[in-house]
Structures are given as C-alpha cells and as structure tokens.
C-alpha cells in the first residue's frame, strides 16, 4: 500500500464513476470502493498492520482518497439525478410558442390623455385649472365675450340651443374666462387653463358636434402680445417637440384684439408643403389674442390698468396631430380595435 497504488485507485474509481451509465452502476461502483467490504474500507482496516511511521503517512493518503471518493460519487450522483430529471422534464414539453395571456389592463381615452398632457404643460407654467358649466348662460357664452345678439356666431347654424331660457350649450370654453375673472374678483395675476366639453353644430371629418377645448387666460399688469407669443411657443415645443416651428398670423375673434392664430410645422411634410397643409408647410393649431378691453371690463378688470392674453386650443386636433390620426370622428366611435392601438408606447413617457 503506497501513494502509487492510491493514484491508480483514484484513476480507476474516477473512470468507473464517469462511465457509469445508470444510478445502479454508480451505486455498485461506490459500493465497490466505499462499501463495508469495499477496497478503501478494506485498506483502512489494513492500516493497523503497518508500522507506526508508515501508518501515519498512508493513513493520511488513504483519508484523502476516501474524501475524494465520497465527493466524486456524490457529485456524479447529483449530476445523474439532474440529468434524469432533465430528461423527465423534457418529456413534459409545453408549447411556449402559444400566445401569452395578456393582463387585463385598462386604457384611458386618447382625448383624456391628450387633455392631461396639455394640462400638465400649463400646470408646470403655474396655470391653475378652472371649469365652467356646459349648459351656459347666453350672456357668458356671447355678450360677455363681445359677441352681440346679431353676430353670425350666434346663428342657429352654429350653436345648439336648448329649452331652457337664455341658456345655450357652450360653443367654446371662452365663457370660463369671464367666470374665472369674476371668481378672482380683481385679484392678480389671473393665470388659468380651462379644459372642457364644447358643442357646435358641425359634423364632418374635421368637426364633431361635441369636442374638447382648453382655454388659457393670463391677466396682470403689462401682459403683452410678446408674452403671448412666448407662452404659445413654449407650449408648442413642450407638446410637439423642440424642433417644431411656429408662425403667427393676424386673425379675428370678437373677444380678443389684436387676435392671432398660431401655425405649426405640418407633420405630414415637415414643412415642405403637401396636400394636408395645402402646400404651405403650416397647419393651424390655435386661436389667441390680447383680451379685448370690453371683455376685461365684463370680467371686472380695468383695461387701463391691466392687460391680458387668451388662447383656445382643440384637444382633438392636437390628439390627431400627436397620434397621427386623419379623421376626427374616429376618436368618438369608441371602437375597441381602434382604441387598442393606443396601448402601445407613444414615444413619450408622459403621455
């Protein structure tokens, strides 16, 4: 019994363990070496017959060999069990190419999401949200906004009238300007954003009889058209991206003077000119202006002391622009197949 012999045994048992084809084979081999009558066990027993000096050396070597064998067979056994389990599991194959079961998730309407996007931009600019009734007093909807009784905007063609005297379904969110001014009661600054439903007698690919607007109003000392331009430009960049260009054109609204409309780069052609933008490269996005002195007075403010600007923006038009929709009516058909597309990432974490 010596180290050389032990090395030989080591090789033998390793060979046996590696070549074992079954757990039975492995156990037989283990038994052969480590069993009660096994080779290593026998050699252990034979130690006592050796002289003391040699016994120490051989004993140590033999112990190492035993440790090695125990570990070897344990590892091989584990390995073999794992393989056995693997083959058993492989027989239990499940078709993972089947479609996954999606979680039942909810979805906000794209108009709600777009409205919140706009609200968020202006809340960050310090605007507070204001609301007014949808069934509005004619005075707030028209007269207070400088739209006299014989103005074409008051024609039956444009407004829905109801069987409540002197009431109308509001045709714009602008009456909230007056209500807010009254509520602020001459306090400054007024800085509000009024989202809400509005109603007009129109129904085609770019008009629906009920839609959503947001109205903005700022009143303070020394508010100017330059401030309005700055605010709207900031809004356009926040909503449509920093690379968007803006253009301002004079326009007309009874309740603002001067009035202007803002155009932004056409999304379809990126400003090159196409059918969507009638070749101009621009699409109109909102109407705005300096609050008309009479409107300031109607809200209780003195136009000689303060000035203000106002703007109104259609949420649907913005949604169409942001999501790339070409027919406004699609937004109100509530077709799940159409809406389900809005589950996908829009490219904007905030939307």
């Amino acid at each position: 019994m010596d180290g050389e012999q032990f090395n030989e045994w080591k090789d033998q048992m390793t060979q046996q363990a590696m070549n074992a084809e079954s757990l039975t084979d492995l156990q037989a081999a283990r038994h052969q070496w480590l069993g009660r009558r096994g080779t290593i066990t026998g050699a252990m027993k034979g130690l006592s017959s050796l002289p003391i000096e040699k016994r120490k050396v051989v004993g140590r070597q033999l112990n190492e060999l035993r440790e090695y064998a125990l570990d070897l067979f344990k590892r091989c056994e584990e390995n073999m069990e794992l393989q056995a389990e693997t083959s058993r599991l492989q027989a239990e194959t499940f078709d993972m190419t089947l479609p996954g079961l999606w979680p039942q998730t909810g979805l906000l309407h794209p108009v709600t999401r777009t409205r919140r996007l706009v609200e968020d931009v202006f809340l960050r600019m310090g605007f507070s949200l204001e609301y007014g009734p949808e069934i509005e007093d004619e005075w707030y909807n028209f007269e207070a906004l400088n739209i006299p009784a014989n103005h074409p905007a008051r024609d039956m063609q444009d407004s829905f009238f109801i069987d409540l005297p002197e009431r109308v379904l509001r045709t714009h969110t602008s009456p909230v300007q007056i209500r807010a001014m009254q509520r602020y009661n001459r306090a400054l600054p007024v800085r509000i954003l009024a989202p809400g439903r509005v109603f007009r007698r129109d129904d085609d690919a770019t008009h629906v009889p009920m839609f959503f607007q947001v109205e903005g109003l700022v009143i303070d000392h020394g508010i100017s058209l330059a401030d309005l331009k700055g605010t709207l430009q900031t809004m356009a960049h926040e909503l449509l991206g920093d690379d968007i260009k803006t253009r301002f054109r004079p326009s007309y609204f009874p309740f603002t003077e001067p009035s202007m409309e803002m155009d932004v780069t056409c999304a379809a052609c990126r400003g090159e000119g196409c059918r969507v933008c009638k070749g101009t490269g621009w699409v109109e996005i909102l109407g705005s202006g300096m609050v008309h002195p009479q409107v300031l007075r109607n809200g209780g403010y003195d136009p000689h002391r303060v000035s203000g600007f106002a703007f109104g923006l259609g949420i649907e038009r913005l949604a169409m622009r942001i999501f790339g929709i070409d027919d406004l009516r699609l937004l109100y058909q509530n077709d799940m197949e159409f809406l389900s597309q809005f589950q996908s990432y829009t490219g904007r974490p905030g939307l």
Partner: protein
Amino acid sequence: MIASYRWLQRFVPELPDANTLEEKLTQLGWEVVSREEWGTCYEPVELVEIVKRVKHPNADHLSVMTIRRQNGQLTSVVTGAQNGVAGDHVWYAPPGTQLVDGRVMETVNMRGIESPGMLLSSQELGFEAGLQDIWIWDGAQNLGTRFLDVVGGSDTIFELELTPNLAVYGQNMHALAQELAASLSLPWDFRETEFFYDHAPMAKVSDAHDCPIYGITEFWIQPNAVTPLWIQVLLRSIGQRPINPAVDLTNFVLWDMGQPLHAFDADKVNGMIEVRRAWDGEKLTTLDGVERTLSSQDLVIADQTQALALAGVMGGTFAAVSSATVHILLEAAHFDSQHIFQTMRRHQIFSDAALHFGKGTDPHAVLSAPAHYQNLLEKMGLLVEKGGSQLIGTMPVRRHISFNPQGIKQLLGVNWAEDKILEGLERLGFEKEEEDIVIPSNRHDVEGTHDLAEDVARVYGLEKIEPHMFMVSATPGRPSPHVAYHELIRNSMTAAGYWEVITRSFSSVPRLRRAGIELPPDVVRVINPLRDEETLLRPSLLPGMLETVEANRARRDISLSLFELAPVYQRSDQDHTEHQELIVIRTLDERMCYPRPDSPHLLEVKGVMEWMNQKCGMGLSWQQVSSGPEFMHPGRLLVLYGASGSVVGYLGELRPGIAQRYRAKRVGVWFMRIGDDRVVTATPNIRHPLRYPEVVRDLSLIIPQGVSYQDIFERAKQLRSQILQTLTPVDHYHGDFGQSWTFRLVFQSEEKTLTDQEVDQVIQQFLQLVENIGVTIRQ
C-alpha cells in the same frame, strides 16, 4: 373674395412677385385659400383670317370656312355661324384647346367633313362683344396673335378668406392694394374724385336709420354698346360674368372700391324713388327670378307704383337694365349694415351687394363711387348726357381716437419708436391730428388703441415681435379638487382593467326607450338638433354605453369592460343642470380562450365597486333589493347609498332582454352619481404588518333558503372578535341536504401566536350565533 394680381397692380405698379405677395397677405391676416393662373386656357387660341366660306354640301345650316393661320397654312373648319366672310379676322381654337366652359376642342366629323377645332364666339371665350355669332375681331393685330396677348397675358388669382374685421372694409382691390403697399412700403396710386350732386327732387328716404345716405343720379347712355375688353378681362379674372356696360361698370366699381351701385332702367320707373319699408305681403320678383313676399322688416327701393329692389341686397326684374337701356338711374347708398345683414340671412340672398353692405361700407363712397362710374362711362364714350342728381343725408364726421403710442407698445410688448408706429398707421390711411388719430371712413372695425395696435402689428408683421415669457410671482398651478377626484376615479378604473370611452352628450326618446329608460320629466331638449338621434341632452350614460357595446360587437364577439365618467343633464330650478355620472359595464358572456375560458362574473363588477369604494374613498354602502330601475335584473340588484345615506346608484345585471338588444347576452352594470358637492376627505390609517402566524379554518355550513352571505357576515361581525380577520366563501355545494357553503375563517393576533383553544372558542361562538338563523355545520 377673389383678388387679381393685375387688378392690384393698377394701384401698386411696383407690386412684387406672386410668392412675396402671398407671404405678405398671410402676414396681414388675409388667408390665401388658393392661388391659380388665370388665362392659360387662352394660350392656343390664335387670330386667323377667313379666306373662303362655302356652304356645307350636306347641311343647310352649316358652312365650311377655309382659314389662314400665321404660317400661311390653310385649314377648313365647319361652322354654324351666320357671320364671318372672307377677309374677316376671327379667333380659332385648334384641337386640344380647352374653352372657358370646360369643353376640349377636337377634330370632329361634321356631316362628312373633318373639322379640326372651332372658330369661337365671344361667349365661348367668356366675353361679351355684341350681337354676333363668331367674334369678328376688328383689332389691328397680326395673324397668329394669341388671344392671351390681347387680354394682357395671364394673371395670378388669389382666393382669399376674410376674417369679419377685414370684411368690414377689405372686400375690394383698393383696400387690399392699400394694405399691401403699406406693408411693402411701396408707392401707390389711387386718385379719387368726388361726385358733385345737385338738388333735383328725385328720391326720398323715409327712415334715415335704415339708410343714412342715399345718392341718385340720372344718366343717358348709348344702347347696345360693349364694355371695353380690359374691364371684361378684370371682371372675368375674378369670376364675374360680363353682361352689359351699365351693369359691368357697377360690378367693376364694386370690386374696385367696395361700393355697391345699382342701376335702374329710368324709363321703367314711375315717379319719385322712395326708400321705405315694404308693406307686409308686398311682392317683388328679384333678379334671380324668385318672387319674394316681403314684410315690414324689409327695406325696399320703390317708385310710386311698386317695390323695384330689395334695398342693398338685390334688384328686381321690373326696372332692370338691359343692353337696350338708354336712360338709367344710378343709386349709390349707404345702408345700415345690420339691417342688410339680417335681410340677407332672412331671404337667403347672398349677393355681392348684400355681402358688402351687410359688413359695412364706406359712407364717403356715396360721393366717390358715382364719380368713378361717370368717369368710366365717359372714357368709354358711352355717356350721352348726365341728368339730375340728389344726395339725401349727411356725411358722418370722421371719428377720432386719442393716439397712445405707449399703450400700443405695451400691448404688443415692443420697444418701437413712436414715429415708426405712426408711420405704420399713416400708411394704412390713418391721419394724426394734434393728439388724435383720425380713423379712415371705411374702418368701422377700429374702436381704440387695441385696434391700432393690431394694425401696427399687421403692417410690420407679427414675426417682428420678439417672443417673451411673462413674469408673475411663481405660484404653483392648482388643479381643481373636484376634478382631481374625477381623475382619481378614471385612473383607478383604468388600473382595474376598464377602458374609458367618451360618448356624445346627446340622446333621444327612442334611444332611451331602447335601453329601457322612460323619459324623465326634467329632461333638457335641444331646440335645433343636428339629427333625430340627438334631440335631447342625456339624462343617463347607459344608452350611449350600450350603443358602444353594440357597435363593438357588431363585427366580433368581443368581451368588453368599459367605463365613462361624464355629465348627465337635467333641468332644475337651481343653476345645477349637470351632474357627473360614472357608468361601468362588463359583458358577462363566456368567451372561449385557451387555456381556460374567459368567464367574467357579475361579482367581478361588484368587486370593482368594492375596491373602488376603498380606493377612492367613495363612502358607499349597499343593500340587495328586488326592485329598482326597470332596465335592471330584479333578482341581481344592489342599491348603492352614499355617505349621507341617500341612494346614489345601482349595481347589478342588466335585464337580459335589454342586453340582447345590444348584441350582448348578459351585462353587468354599475352606475352612480359622483357628487360634486362632496370631495372625500380621509386620513391615511396605515399599521404595521401582523408578525404572528395566521390560523386558517374552513367551515362547511348548511344554509337554509333565504339566508344570504350578508346575514352570516353580520353575525360574524357581532362577535367583535379581535382575532377573526376575514370570513370568505371558498366553495359551494348543492346536495340532498340543501345548499352548503364552505367559508374560510382566517385568525391572527396582533400580540401573540394563537392557540387552537382560542380559535375554537371563537368558532363555537360563531356557530351559536348563526344557529339562530338556521345555519348548521355540515358533518
């Protein structure tokens, strides 16, 4: 409005190219809807000479003309024209030419003879040249001259959309040219002369408010004359049809300077002209051939017999001028614009005159327009003699406002010099007089500094104003607490897996009936609905929601979980006509789906309500009832109470018969008012997790008929046990013993690990309590 580049150039000779013009128009607030080249269709039309005319061998009314073209080439063309003999110069449209009416010339076989193209009449070219078939050209131009050259070449035509403030003064070339010249800093040429009225007693005006200024002039003119081609060309280019000189000139003056004139055939007028209100029931056949019944709301121009014209809107046929007219009465008036606007809408006559008078005209034009007209008549050699004239009313004084350049600068947010501001205004026709600005007589739109600021901004361009961010104290923006609460509900419903829909606020009686809803007495009706399905404002979100279900299930069997939070409307004595309603709907049909069918249960709708009640602090309580809204299944219905104890809504299953009308078999519904008055306040109550193990016991109980889960749950609550945490149903059996429920009771203590004895004690107490309602334990 249609504007012609050529026409504008008459006022501004140095007008830049059309692209620059379009940019300037946009900058000035004139929206360019479209831009096209006019006259290109005349390109191929050339002047030829007739060399021979023979009768068509196979047709009595046709002739064959041999024509010589510029290169001497001879061509034969068949014509039906009575005129045209050898030596005449005529206009020839070779094949391929498109005529004004859209016809395209080709080579046609006319009774056996090939005829390439056509010899043209003046009408086929869009002009009036007197009574002749083909247009015999008496000009000295060479053969081969293009017709386009004799009309002065092509022109660029702008279609403009005018905002109401521009329409007040801008519907004419003069005003447009003035704005362009002002913003381009170009010289412009507009000489106007004032007509000198004498005092012939020719007319009277019964109400100066309706017609503040009325001018009338008598002219004798040459009959059967032709309007000069250059005027016809300008009228044509803006889409006006030339008729006869007397009429064409009124049209020309209208578009040139914005003053509608009207010419009456003086020989058909009986006595003095009267500007008066119509009698109720008075008849007038207007120039469009329609006989109209007038009322005292209408202003008419009448003679001593009858109404001759609807004032400022449209003339009548009786005294209309024709090419044979030799004696005219020319009216130049200033009417009350509101009155004309209303008449125009009432009678639905959107004539050019009404569209001008109705927006407002320049009172001063009552002097300048007839002078312009007379001048043109003279130039054309058509004026035989000028007769009497009369002006009734006085010119209004020109309005002044104080000049406040500081105010203009502040409003625009610019630091421009006062001179620059004044110069811009002066270019637009404003004048400074001492400390005032005098407003031009056509600018009814200008009231104060705001309006001047707009004009200054327009002349220099809005892009010249540097954007700036306004500065106010940095207070945070605030959402409304009410609406923030609505948003919480929307977010929570979405988190619960429901999809938000937005439906229109309108409904109708049949739509409500279909959903099983009787018309409430306090419904708000729409007086002028767009369609029959939208005659009232919805008193409930249910019909719209069910229609959404129907529309979605029309094409596929889709299971739906939807909600809407939106207003419903009712008339009330107070101002409160809108209420927020929440509706939640879920189709309950089983849908095949691997690996397990998707079988939503009514309790899932209830579960959403229970969860929302906690999540949104709705403060709801509920009770099963056997009757409620007619459209609900009476066997599966909960009434919901708000925190104050009043009924706020219902939850249950829709009557299956109604569900089926909307292509659904079974539908779970939860609907309730969301009170606007009460924003839920709550303080968070968060405790530490329990550290001791729970003890779970399942109890199978035999439940007699009529005992509900609620009955058992209430008993468990009566125990007031500190350790019984939950009691939930986990299984249900039917057997010969009746019905049995297995409940899982979960015990847990805040203080210690529970012993069996402690748990058993609670269970015994519980069993004793439920025994009173006939519940026994199943062995």
